[in-house]
C-alpha cells in the first residue's frame, strides 16, 4: 500500500457548524446503514417471495380443488385470507431483519463506532427504530397488496375471488402489511434487550410460533382465555379473519399485539440508554 505523506493531512475545510448533531442526520445515517448491507435486500426478497409465492400456491390449489370442496368449506371460505396465508410464514422472515437491525450492531462491534459518532443514545435508538419501521411498513404493504391481487387473480378462474371494496377486505390487506412491520418491531425490541442475534431470533420465534402451540395443548377452557392475549394470535387477527369465538374483534386484538411490541421497544430503549455499550 502506498505511503501517505503527512502533507496530505491538509483536507478541505468543513462548513462552520451550526446547531448540534441531532435526529435528522441520524435518520439519514440509519437509512444509509440499512440500505448498504446485503442482508437487508436478501431478507426483504425472501419475505416477498415467501408471502407472494405461498399465497399464489395456496390460491391456485384452492381454485383447482374448488369443485371437491365441501359445503362447510365453501361457506367459511374467505378469499382475502386465502391469498394472504403466506404472511404467516413471512412474519418469521421480517423477525430476522428486525432483530438483525439491532443485534448486528453488537455482533460486528459497530455499536462502539456508531455511539462514538452519535453519543445521544435516545436519538440513536429513535432513528434506528423509525427507519426500520418505514422500510418494514413499505415492503410489508407492497408484499401484502401484491399477494392479495395475485391471489384474487388466481381465484378468479373459479369466480370465488373478492375485491378491496368487499366488507373487511381492505382492513385485512392493509393490516397484513401492518402485521409484518409490527412483527419486525417486536423482534427489534427483543434485539435491543438481549443484544444477541441468535438469542433475539429464537426468543421472537419462540413467542410468536411455539407459544401458541404449547397453549393449544392446555384444556380448552384455558386455551380460549389465554389465546386472545397471546402476541401471535392478537397480531394475526388483523388479517387472518376467522373471527373465532375466543378472540376480540380484529382491531382490539391487533392493539394487544401493538401494546406488547411497544412494551418491548420501551424496555429496550430504557436499557439501551442505561447500559454500557
Amino acid at each position, binding site marked *: 500500500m*502506498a505511503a*501517505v505523506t503527512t502533507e496530505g493531512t491538509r*483536507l478541505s475545510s468543513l462548513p462552520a457548524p451550526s446547531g448540534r448533531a441531532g435526529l435528522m442526520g441520524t435518520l439519514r445515517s440509519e437509512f444509509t446503514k440499512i440500505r*448498504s448491507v446485503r442482508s437487508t435486500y436478501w431478507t426483504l426478497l425472501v419475505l416477498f417471495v415467501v408471502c407472494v409465492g405461498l399465497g399464489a400456491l395456496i390460491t391456485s390449489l384452492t381454485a383447482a380443488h374448488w369443485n371437491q370442496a365441501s359445503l362447510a368449506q365453501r361457506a367459511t371460505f374467505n378469499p382475502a385470507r386465502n391469498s394472504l396465508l403466506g404472511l404467516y410464514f413471512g412474519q418469521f422472515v421480517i423477525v430476522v431483519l428486525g432483530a438483525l437491525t439491532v443485534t448486528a450492531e453488537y455482533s*460486528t462491534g459497530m455499536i462502539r463506532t456508531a455511539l462514538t459518532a452519535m453519543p445521544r443514545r435516545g436519538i440513536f435508538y429513535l432513528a434506528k427504530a423509525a427507519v426500520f419501521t418505514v422500510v418494514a411498513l413499505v415492503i410489508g404493504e407492497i408484499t401484502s397488496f401484491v399477494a392479495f391481487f395475485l391471489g384474487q387473480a388466481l381465484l378468479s378462474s373459479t369466480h370465488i375471488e373478492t375485491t378491496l371494496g368487499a366488507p373487511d377486505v381492505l382492513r385485512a390487506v392493509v393490516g397484513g402489511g401492518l402485521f409484518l412491520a409490527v412483527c419486525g418491531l417486536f423482534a427489534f425490541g427483543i434485539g435491543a434487550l438481549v443484544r444477541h442475534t441468535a438469542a433475539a431470533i429464537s426468543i421472537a420465534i419462540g413467542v410468536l410460533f411455539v407459544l401458541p402451540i404449547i397453549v393449544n395443548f392446555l384444556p380448552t377452557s384455558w386455551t380460549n382465555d389465554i389465546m386472545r392475549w397471546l402476541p401471535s394470535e392478537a397480531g394475526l387477527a388483523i388479517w387472518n379473519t376467522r373471527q373465532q369465538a375466543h378472540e376480540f374483534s380484529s382491531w382490539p386484538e391487533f392493539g394487544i399485539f401493538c401494546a406488547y411490541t411497544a412494551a418491548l421497544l420501551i424496555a429496550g430503549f430504557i436499557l439501551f440508554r442505561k447500559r454500557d455499550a
Partner: protein
Amino acid sequence: MIEVRGLTKRYGEKLAVNDLSFSVEPGKVTGFLGPNGAGKTTTMRLILGLDYPTAGSVQIDGKQYRELDYPMREVGALIDAKAVHGGRTAYNHLLCLAQTNNIPRRRVDEVLSLVGLSEVAKKRSKAFSLGMSQRLGIAGTLLGDPSVLMFDEPVNGLDPEGIRWIRNLMRALAAEGRTVFVSSHLMSEMENTADDIIVIGRGKLIANTTIEKFIAENSTETVRVRTPQIDVMARAVAAAGGTATANGDGSLLVQGMPTERVGDVAFEAGVRLHELSQARASLEEAFMELTADSVEYHAGTAADAPTAPTPAGTETEQAPAGRTS
C-alpha cells in the same frame, strides 16, 4: 484537552479503573501506556461515554462527551478498527458516520484518499487486512477535522511501513495543535512518537511525565549523581564533555559518559558524592519494572515451572514466555 478526574469503573468485583486523574494537553502526542489489562481501553471507553463511570468524571474541552454539539468535529476516536459492519463498503461505512454529524459527502472521499483507501472505497470491509482496517478507522477519526484524537493501540498488527505512517500522522496532527492521545502496551512504540506519557497499571496511575524526562531517567547513558555541590559538579561534567541536567529532586542526571568516568570527574573536581548510580538499561526494561507489580497475567518462569505447582487461586500459569504477556 481531555481532563480525567477521579475516574473509577467497577465491573462486578473487578476494579478496572481506580481513581484515575490526568489531563491530556493539546499540541502534543500523549502516550497512554500500561500492560494488557491495565485499564487503557476501559479509560478510553469512559472518556467516550460508551461506558458509564462508577465515580469521577471526564471533560473534553470543558464538556462531557455526550454534550458535545458535534462529537465527531471535536473528537476523533478509534477504539477498535474491527468494530465495523464487514458487509458495508468502506465508503458507506464512513458515510453513515459522517451523516450523523452533518459532515458533507465530499469529506468521505477526501479522508479515503488521505489514508490511501480510495481504490477499495467500494469494497466491503470484511475483506480488509488489519492494516487496511486501521486505515479505515483512522479515516473515520479525521472526518470531522477534530481537535482531539484518540487511538487505542493503533499500530497493533501493522507492518513497519504502516507503523511509520501512523507515527508520522500522529506527529503531524499534534504539530497542527491538536490533542493526540494514543495507547500502547509497548514503550518502544512511544519512544519516538510521544511527548508526554501516562502510565497506568491495574487501573491506577503509575507515572505522568514527559518522554524526555522518562528517557533521561531511564536510558543507558544516564548516570544519576547526588551531591551537595551540584553547581561544581555540573561545571566539571560540562568541562569533561558530558551534559548534566538538574532532575528537580536535588539530583543531577549526567549523560554522555559512563559511570566510571563520572566518578573520576567528581574525584578530580574534589566533589563529594552521596550517590553515583547508573540508570536503567533500556526504556522497555524501565517500563516493565515500573509496571511489574501491576501486570495481570504473568507468564511462569522456566525455573519455577517443574518444581513449584501453581498455587491455587492465582492467575499464574506455566506458559512459554511470549505466549502470554
